[in-house]
């Protein structure tokens, strides 16, 4: 009778859980890493695989909500940035412990900042905080507060802490003691990584139960996207991030409930012309490429809507500039993609002395307009885009050769020998803040692709971009920063050093056995709520 009663109680509890939307504890989430993680030290992370491990294991003071794009309290319950943008004060959460039981406090924040700014460690996360010459000073204040002061102002300072996983100053396990929902339990190089539930994780759900719901996360190291998709279809893995449109459409036809299109991502595909003075291309070609009207004409002759429709099966958006509509705050809503207009293109070209002669466009010296577009081999979408651009160019009498090169050879050409005419590549953008694009827009930068490392800005509009980018980086008022960066986007739209083509949509695959997943455009698209994700165990078992 007593056993019967106990069984009934368990049954009633289970039924209550299932009807009231309670997430179930237990189960193993499985997905793939596309490369070996280079490090488990959160300070030294500079690759995607290590970043995934850091996201799942590291505890941060503040966390960017990937859906609202707003900062939320995490290990810090409150924070305040000083008016001059040089200092930030955090109020730390009490009663938090690392995975090995060591308690968390201000010392750990001070230790982490010291490690982060140690020049000997060359931390790329730390580079974002290097604002000027001088020491970063961390002070432990009363009432569980800690203040960090930098030698110079840093725009968007608080958001940078989303990437800083706090390390223990006292634990003998060093970086293996973590504050995130999971901790590294097993690593077999070349095969897999298993993260186990952190029993000391501080967060609880609405009913006071300690998170995470999942027992473990298995990350299989799998470079081949075809095999990854095959394993997803077999139910061996639960998530696939950053699907391409072809895989996505196949998935839609087979399992529509698993396919998620979160809309335009932050990534862009663009082409640019080589404007490097010392490049070995003929001088008449360089003269074309330096002409704003030539670049604008080429841009107007490209049918972006066709690229979106044919190459991406409508899972992309025509691009107007470097910032995608996914970036809610920084996107300049005034800008529209350049429309496809051959007549306008030919008008611009004729204003520069070009003429259409028996279907062949010639410059004022009589040279037929021909150029090659290089892109990386093996990337089908870029090859298709280049082939479509090739036909679009025929419409204005321009002959284009499409050349696919392996990636090292391509990088050699665009960064060292500069022996190319035009290049079609993509930019993967993971950071919302325009400061992360300083290395692209400053004329002195190495990644100023159309003309890197200029000694001084070669055009007035490049000088203006330099000024505006520096101005937004040194201003603390977000609205003033936005005004400056909006102006940068307008100058880029006007002069087209990069001809922006499309923003791909953020496509992902999520198994229906997973609950609590909201795919978004920001990285990590699908597992950013890993601590509140759960598996529907009966369905998973089936």
């Amino acid at each position: 009778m007593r056993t019967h009663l106990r069984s009934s109680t368990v049954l009633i509890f289970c039924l209550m859980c299932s009807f009231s939307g309670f997430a179930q504890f237990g189960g193993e989430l499985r997905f793939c890493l596309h490369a070996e993680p280079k490090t488990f030290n959160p300070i030294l992370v500079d690759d995607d695989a290590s970043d995934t491990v850091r996201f799942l294991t590291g505890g941060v003071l503040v966390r960017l909500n990937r859906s609202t794009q707003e900062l939320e309290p995490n290990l810090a319950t409150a924070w305040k940035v000083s008016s001059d943008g040089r200092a930030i004060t955090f109020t730390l959460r009490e009663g938090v412990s690392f995975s090995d039981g060591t308690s968390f406090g201000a010392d750990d924040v001070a230790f982490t900042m010291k490690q982060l700014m140690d020049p000997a460690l060359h931390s790329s996360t730390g580079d974002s905080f290097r604002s000027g010459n001088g020491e970063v000073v961390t002070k432990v204040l009363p009432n569980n507060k800690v203040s960090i002061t930098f030698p110079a102002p840093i725009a968007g300072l608080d958001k940078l802490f989303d990437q800083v996983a706090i390390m223990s100053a006292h634990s003998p396990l060093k970086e293996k003691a973590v504050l995130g929902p999971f901790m590294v339990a097993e690593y077999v190089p070349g095969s897999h990584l298993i993260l186990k539930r952190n029993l000391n994780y501080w967060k609880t759900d609405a009913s006071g139960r300690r998170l995470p719901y999942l027992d473990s996360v298995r990350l299989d190291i799998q470079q081949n996207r075809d095999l990854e998709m095959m394993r997803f279809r077999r139910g061996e893995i639960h998530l696939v991030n950053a699907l391409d449109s072809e895989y996505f459409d196949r998935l839609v036809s087979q399992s529509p409930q698993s396919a998620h299109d979160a809309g335009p991502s932050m990534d862009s595909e663009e082409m640019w012309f080589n404007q490097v003075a010392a490049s070995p291309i003929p001088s008449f070609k360089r003269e074309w490429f330096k002409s704003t009207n030539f670049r604008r004409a080429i841009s107007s002759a490209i049918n972006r809507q066709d690229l979106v429709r044919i190459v991406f099966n409508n899972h992309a958006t025509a691009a107007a500039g470097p910032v995608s509509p996914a970036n809610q705050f920084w996107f300049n809503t005034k800008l529209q993609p350049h429309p496809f207009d051959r007549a306008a293109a030919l008008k611009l070209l004729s204003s520069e002395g070009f003429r259409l002669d028996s279907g062949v466009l010639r410059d004022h010296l009589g040279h037929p307009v021909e150029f090659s577009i290089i892109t990386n081999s093996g990337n089908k979408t870029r090859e298709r885009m280049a082939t479509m651009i090739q036909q679009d160019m025929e419409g204005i009498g321009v002959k284009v050769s499409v050349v696919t090169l392996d990636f090292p050879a391509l990088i050699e050409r665009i960064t060292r020998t500069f022996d190319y005419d035009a290049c079609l590549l993509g930019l993967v953008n993971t950071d919302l803040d325009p400061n992360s694009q300083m290395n692209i827009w400053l004329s002195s930068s190495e990644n100023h692709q159309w003309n890197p490392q200029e000694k001084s800005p070669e055009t007035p509009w490049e000088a203006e971009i330099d000024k505006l980018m520096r101005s937004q980086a040194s201003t603390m008022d977000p609205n003033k920063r936005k005004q400056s960066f909006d102006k940068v986007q307008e100058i880029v739209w006007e002069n087209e050093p990069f001809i922006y083509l499309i923003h791909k949509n953020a496509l992902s695959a999520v198994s229906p056995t997973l609950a609590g997943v909201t795919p978004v455009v920001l990285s990590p698209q699908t597992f950013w709520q890993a601590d509140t994700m759960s598996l529907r165990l009966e369905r998973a078992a089936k």
Partner: protein
Amino acid sequence: MRVDRKIAWFVLLGLVTVCMCAQLLAPANYAKQFREAPNASPSKHFLLGTDDLGRDRFSRLLYGGRVSLLLAPAAALLSTCLAAGLGTIAGYAGGMLARIIMGTVDLFLSLPWFFLLITVRATLPLDVSPMTSVTVTFALLGFLGWAASARVVYAGVRALRTSDFITTARACGCLRWRTLAVHIMPNLKPILWAQFLVSIPAFILAEANLTMLGLGVAEPLPSWGSLLRELENYDNLSSQPWRLAPLVLLMLVVWGFQALLSHDEVMA
């Protein structure tokens, strides 16, 4: 002549003739993108449907056949000639010369040609025409593909060299070059013919792989190898079997060349 050989001649000559007349027979230019009809099913406008950029698949198949059926046999001829020359010299001369040549063969077989091909592509000028690019590719395949065949030829010559009729010829005072030209080379014909015929489909497929690496046929020029890339998307094959057309033609060509081989040549 056997019936299957007659059919093989008919099929191969028919395919070559049709492909050579692509300009007359193809309903559209191979590069023309019908953007309103990407991935279209077969119809009276598009006999084999269109590819993912809206290009007429039938026209591309005909034009692609010109590239593959001309250049792959040319590359196979080049590699077979190199193999015949070097394999025969090594097998007939023997001694140090044979060791040097066979050592070179081993070296060729062990070198990572894949990386060499990538390097060659990276050093080619960017503004070469698609036809030049594909000719260079097949020429490279021909130059690099002789080593395995040379081993087979070498073994054949070694076997002939110690045969009774060669010994008799030499005993009768037959000069070395005459022995080689009159007695050995004609007996190598089945081996060389077999090597030539098996190289053709291998080169067509090698070109398909190289195209994926950027060292093959540049867009928009088609080849059967580049058309085979459509089969990467294998999920839709059952609903779109017409995408198998280049594979069917390739199999016909391989079968045709195999059927042309006599029993002795197959054994060789």
